[in-house]
């Protein structure tokens, strides 16, 4: 039984986490295509960006590594996890914040012009413009 749990743990750490990230990515892209509400689309876009961030953080991880902060007793690079993906993802988080901000500002403009943020009412007959 304990062997099985060990195998399961190994599988989850080795492959499972990537599969979960992939599922998150796929769900988010599906949501961006399928949702009719622009706000929901924007939220799905955020989910997609988060899934990419998870992906980077996951492959930066390794077994038995500690935080990449220099400790006096530990000198070898083997003992630390790779800090570069974390640094890259800090930048990516800032970028995604900027994108979300622009998206929200655009939604306000759309709401002002059309009076709604439902896609079918803007493109269909319900919108003010048509």
């Amino acid at each position: 039984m304990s062997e099985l749990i060990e195998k399961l743990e190994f599988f989850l750490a080795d492959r499972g986490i990537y599969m979960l990230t992939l599922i998150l990515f796929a769900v988010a892209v599906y949501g961006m295509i399928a949702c009719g509400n622009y706000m929901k689309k924007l939220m799905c876009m955020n989910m997609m960006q988060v899934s990419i961030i998870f992906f980077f953080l996951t492959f930066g991880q390794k077994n038995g590594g500690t935080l990449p902060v220099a400790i006096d007793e530990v000198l070898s690079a083997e003992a630390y996890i790779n800090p570069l993906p974390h640094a890259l993802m800090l930048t990516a988080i800032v970028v995604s914040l900027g994108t979300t901000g622009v998206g929200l500002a655009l939604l306000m403009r759309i709401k002002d012009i059309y009076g709604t943020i439902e896609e079918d009412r803007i493109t269909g007959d319900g919108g003010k413009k048509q």
Partner: protein
Amino acid sequence: MNQIADHLPVLVILLPLCGTLLCPIISHFNINAGKRTVITALFLSIVCAVLQLIQVITTGEAIHYWLGGWAPPIGIEFVIDGLNGVVILLVAIISFTTALYSSPFEKLERIDRIHSAGYYSMLAFLSVGLLGLSSTGDAFNLYVFMEITAISGYGLIAVGEDKGPIASFRYLMTGTIGACMYLLGIGFLYAATGTLNMADLADRLTGLMDSPLIVMSAACLIVGFGIKMALFPLHGWQPAAHSYAHPAADPMIAGIMIKIPAYAMLRFFFCIFDEQSHVMQLFFNAIGVMAVIGILFGSLKALRYDTYNKILAYSSIGQVGYIAMGFAIGNFYGIIGAILHIVSHAFMKAGLFYTSGALKYKYGIHDINELGQVYRKMPVTSLTMVICALSMIGLPPFAGFFSKWYLALGAIEKGNYFYVAVLILSSLLGAIYFFRIMEKLFMGEKTAREKELPEKSRFELPWQMLLPLLTVVAAVILLGLFNAYIVNGVLKTTIWEVVLT
């Protein structure tokens, strides 16, 4: 002076960035001073771009600029060689002329200082993104510049006409998927090699080209760049975004915002990946199929519309197909054709959108049916339109002819006559939709127009708008006439040394 010369690659980008940041502050005190700051910064950026291109040509070596003095595999570097020196100069020229071109629109719309400051900041920021995209030598840095370009582009599309915000929001959705796919591709590359520097990546990838990580990475990069450059099945955002963007910023958005990702794609697929490997040959075939369908689709769709901007936007889908076709051909002539098409199409499409903006400015014309007899009132605009259109069709001696000529030479050398047939067919389709516009312009009946500006100035348009038009005409003719000098003097050695190794 010597010290400044050492820092040219970063000054090209830093000057517009200073313009972006200073413009809102200065505009708070004086609206014209803020605008002039941006225009001056963009002009100085052209000067730096010219100086660094001269330096590259005279020394014959690429400039490697280490940001902050950190050595490349760890630090970020800018690499300027003959190839991207030309692209940077192109971006700088079109950014400057577009900033100049925008100022009369401001008086027309009577906008307040917050909007004016925001508009010029975004324009300079777009230029920062595009210049950075073409000069960086680091894969993640390229992502950051790509997002800078995209975010300022969203803003400039949204301040346009009524449908602008919707077009911009759709572009935001699609563009973010593109950026995420690019980031995913970079993630795979980093996981396989442990580096992000482009030269270092190329070294470490030599034996790895068959690994599934690299195959996935190349696939993700095709989708990422394909969305940004509006390659055929991924072009959904492009027609609306290019049609409804702010008329003054449109030349820059339509002219260069879809070309620079194409240049970045060239960097990745020829400089980093090994283009001779079996895997890449398969990917190039896929790109070729997308390009061919895109060329025919864009040209046929352009026939359907009467709105001037829509015709130009769909024609861009076809023209981006030519660039991708150059990658798919993949030999010396194909690459030359693709690069020349990046440069010449940027000028031609920017020129056509300058005329579109001028027509909107003076008469409020959107539809080509209202163009009748406009040439009597606006001779320079009509001349620009005719020259750019002839160049788009591919008549010698204009720039557009030579890029198509090199593409055809490359396709013949590779023995792929199908591409040649597509080139000829799409040129004929291009002739049909551009002659339709010219027929309306010269032979159409004069129709009632929405508005007409009173004749105040001596010329047909303010000089700030005439100068960009004339620059584009000169560029299209000179790029055509001095084509051999550009290919032999600047591009040839770089392509043999950097791209096809």
